[in-house]
């Protein structure tokens, strides 16, 4: 979480005015960019250029602005410059030890460049403007052959939600399962491609990803990680409503050295409810199932992720303990009320604001659960070597509205109801239930 700070309502109003100004500016720019000619008066050559994009002549270096600034250096290199800012206004009923979670959170301030080299390789470099770990995706993908090879730092191929760009999320926050149990980014190399109805990714990575990165010397994380994913589009190529359906399965394996585990449980707004004070040692395995279907303006997504971490030799008698288990799932659905096709993305509305319309509007809902526990016999304990760990979980329901005034701007409002099952002082389970509200304003080039 970056730079959470408290602001007064007057500050919020000022920021809101600034947002509206920027939004309007972008919309005007969008209108100008869409067509410099009055409707129906454009010359044929201009129409052709618009329809095919601003194609540079062979060997020339040109700078154009399509969805984002693009630099073409002859036929050899194309660079697309990107930038993204997301700001959240949050209000939660969950009271933390330090106060509450209310405030403004500048979630992301990122710049990046993507590009193509000689039409045989693509690359991406993306960086957060501040923070301790600013580099995001930094990779090169060699795609001359059917089996493509990607190397660098990028997300491990597990979890549909985690591998969806933050710009294109259906809800302000990713699912609890994706955020806490999917590995996230790491340095590695991966082969991937498509064979008929099947897409595949197989890779090896230096570590177990950023999402479970140990933040203290006493916490440990996975070492060299192997990951794989297979996604099947069973109706690909057909013209039925099912043609977009895809189902997939993914896995990772790594070894975690002896120490406090690093997988933790956080609520939607980031409050920790399961802290990693459990000793682990041995193999860490993830298995994930995913499904996505986007018929017309609708979408249905679901995922299940299970993470198992062995606790070899961690008993008080140096024996093995039952593994630390973590599991999460979600089911979500969205509906674009303004009729855009979900598979094409509502972020390019048919009738943008100030161009005869009011943009695209989408509503959605998600239910999810994230749990931590161990299967054992005996008394429940909060000991780091407890054989039986009390099940701790977060059950959440999210209701959201997304408004896309134009292709660069997105406003999201989420109402989240969460129910935490956490241990009380006497190690019995207690339930905390609360509501949170989040408004996200996003600008993306």
């Amino acid at each position, binding site marked *: 979480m970056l730079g959470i700070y408290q602001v007064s309502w007057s500050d919020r109003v000022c920021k809101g005015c600034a947002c509206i100004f920027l939004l309007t500016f972008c919309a005007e720019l969008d209108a100008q960019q869409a067509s410099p000619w009055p409707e129906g008066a454009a010359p044929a050559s201009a129409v052709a250029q618009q329809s095919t994009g601003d194609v540079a002549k062979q060997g020339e270096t040109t700078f154009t602005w399509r969805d984002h600034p693009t630099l073409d250096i002859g036929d050899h290199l194309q660079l697309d410059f990107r930038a993204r800012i997301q700001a959240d206004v949050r209000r939660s009923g969950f009271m933390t030890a330090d106060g509450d979670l209310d405030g403004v959170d500048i979630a992301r301030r990122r710049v990046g460049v993507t590009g193509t080299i000689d039409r045989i390789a693509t690359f991406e470099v993306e960086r957060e403007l501040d923070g301790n770990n600013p580099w995001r995706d930094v990779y090169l993908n060699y795609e001359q052959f059917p089996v493509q090879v990607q190397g660098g730092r990028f997300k491990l191929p597990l979890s549909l939600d985690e591998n969806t760009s933050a710009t294109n999320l259906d809800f302000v926050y990713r699912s609890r399962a994706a955020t806490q149990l999917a590995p996230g980014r790491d340095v590695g190399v991966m082969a991937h491609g498509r064979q008929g109805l099947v897409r595949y990714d197989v890779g090896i990575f230096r570590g177990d990803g950023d999402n479970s990165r140990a933040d203290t010397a006493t916490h440990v994380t996975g070492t060299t990680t192997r990951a794989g994913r297979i996604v099947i589009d069973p109706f690909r190529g057909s013209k039925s409503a099912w043609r977009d359906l895809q189902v997939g399965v993914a896995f990772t394996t790594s070894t975690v050295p002896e120490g406090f585990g690093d997988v933790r449980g956080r609520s939607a707004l980031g409050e920790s409810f399961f802290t990693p004070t459990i000793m682990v040692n041995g193999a860490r395995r993830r298995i994930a199932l995913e499904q996505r279907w986007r018929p017309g303006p609708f979408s249905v997504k679901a995922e299940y992720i299970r993470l198992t971490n062995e606790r070899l030799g961690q008993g008080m008698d140096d024996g093995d303990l039952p593994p630390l288990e973590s599991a999460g799932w979600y089911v979500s659905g969205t509906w674009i009320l303004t009729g855009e096709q979900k598979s094409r993305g509502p972020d390019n509305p048919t009738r943008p604001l100030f161009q005869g319309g009011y943009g695209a509007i989408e509503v959605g809902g998600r239910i999810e659960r994230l749990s931590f526990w161990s299967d054992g016999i005996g008394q429940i304990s909060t*000991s780091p070597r407890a054989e039986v760990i009390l099940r701790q979980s977060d059950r959440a329901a999210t209701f959201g509205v997304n408004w896309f005034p134009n292709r660069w701007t997105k406003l999201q409002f989420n109402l989240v109801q969460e129910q935490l099952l956490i241990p009380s002082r006497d190690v019995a389970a207690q339930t905390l239930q609360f509501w949170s509200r989040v408004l996200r304003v996003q600008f993306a080039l």
Partner: protein
Amino acid sequence: MNSHGEDAATENTETRDDRRVLRIRPSMVCVLVAALLGLSTDLALAQTADDLFDPTALHDIRIRLNARDLQSLHERYLENTFYPGEFEWRGASVGNVAVRSRGTGSRNAIKLGLEIEFDRFIGGQRFLGLRGITLDNLWQDPAILRESLTMALFARLGQPAPRESYARLFINDEYQGLYTIVETIDDQFLSRSFGDPAGYVLEYHWLNEFYGSYLGSRLSAYTMMFEPRTHELESPTTVYSAIERLFYEANRNTDSTWREGVDRYLDVPQFLMHVAIEEFVSELDGISGYAGMNNFYLYRPSDNTRQQLIPWDRDNAFQAVQSSVFLRIDDNEILRRLLGYPDLRELYLQMLEACAAAAAGDRWLEREVVWRAALVTPAVRADPNKPYSNDDVDRGIAFLQSFARDRPAIVLNQVRAGR
């Protein structure tokens, strides 16, 4: 012959019948086994805390820790990190207890002083009704018995004191040495000693030389020095105001109301008795210690503000048989002014006489030294981690015997001279 043959036949028949019964009702075997197991468990559970603190027995305590935790406990003995372990005494065991290194001057990596909390990892877990115990490593006492003898004298004189007994400690089946099992000062101790489990009890931590001066009205000046062992979650005002008031009243210059003010926040007779016992046993590191006040808990009843002292850590008692019963008394602000009142000085002297009488009567203290030494000597000789030799132990115990024999008369002479 026939008769014998009939008997044999009868016996065989009975045996077959028994077998038949056993075959027909195998569940009875299970019931019998379960009953036997249950009986043994019940025998263990039938023990009480009084049995654990029985000083006439040499106990065996076994702790099992993960090998990594044991290594960490030794390497990081200066930290107060709790490690999970299993605790066993007389066949009764309890799991997921919390074990940490403890002690100030006695804290070391070779022979660990340990604090055991039964309820840290499992809320409400008790062992023999206890929330925890301390295992004193006897690191600073070659005579082995200083701590337990002093506590026994406190108890004999009707003063609140933790119960203690001796134990051979085994960690992961390896003998660690002779330890003293010390009762934890908590709400259960208050219940047993004062019938007041709702009382307040705070452990004094030595931070620097403190002689009872007033540290000001800010309660934060006292929070580091006094750690609450009950009512930990209550506001500092509730927990510390009576302590701040005590030192405020004790340092006022107004003579006319000084005694009344102090009496409101201190049980003066109990305080003087505590000091008298310390002076009788020539305590080096107590209320009138060589480096200021040390080694005590402060108890405040739930229904009034008159605070009392509870002794702790007496490894430095029995220093010198000729020690003055007024040694360093004037260093302490409260003691100095209390003993300035003739009646309180007389009360103090009477208490010293009571100490001498309790120790000398029927040669109680001397006999205590003898039987306790006989009980623990084999275990301490086998102690692989003690920082002193067996000769040191023998000399220390011999000194205690002479102290126990000679000290009462010396104290009585000093009392007579002090009047």
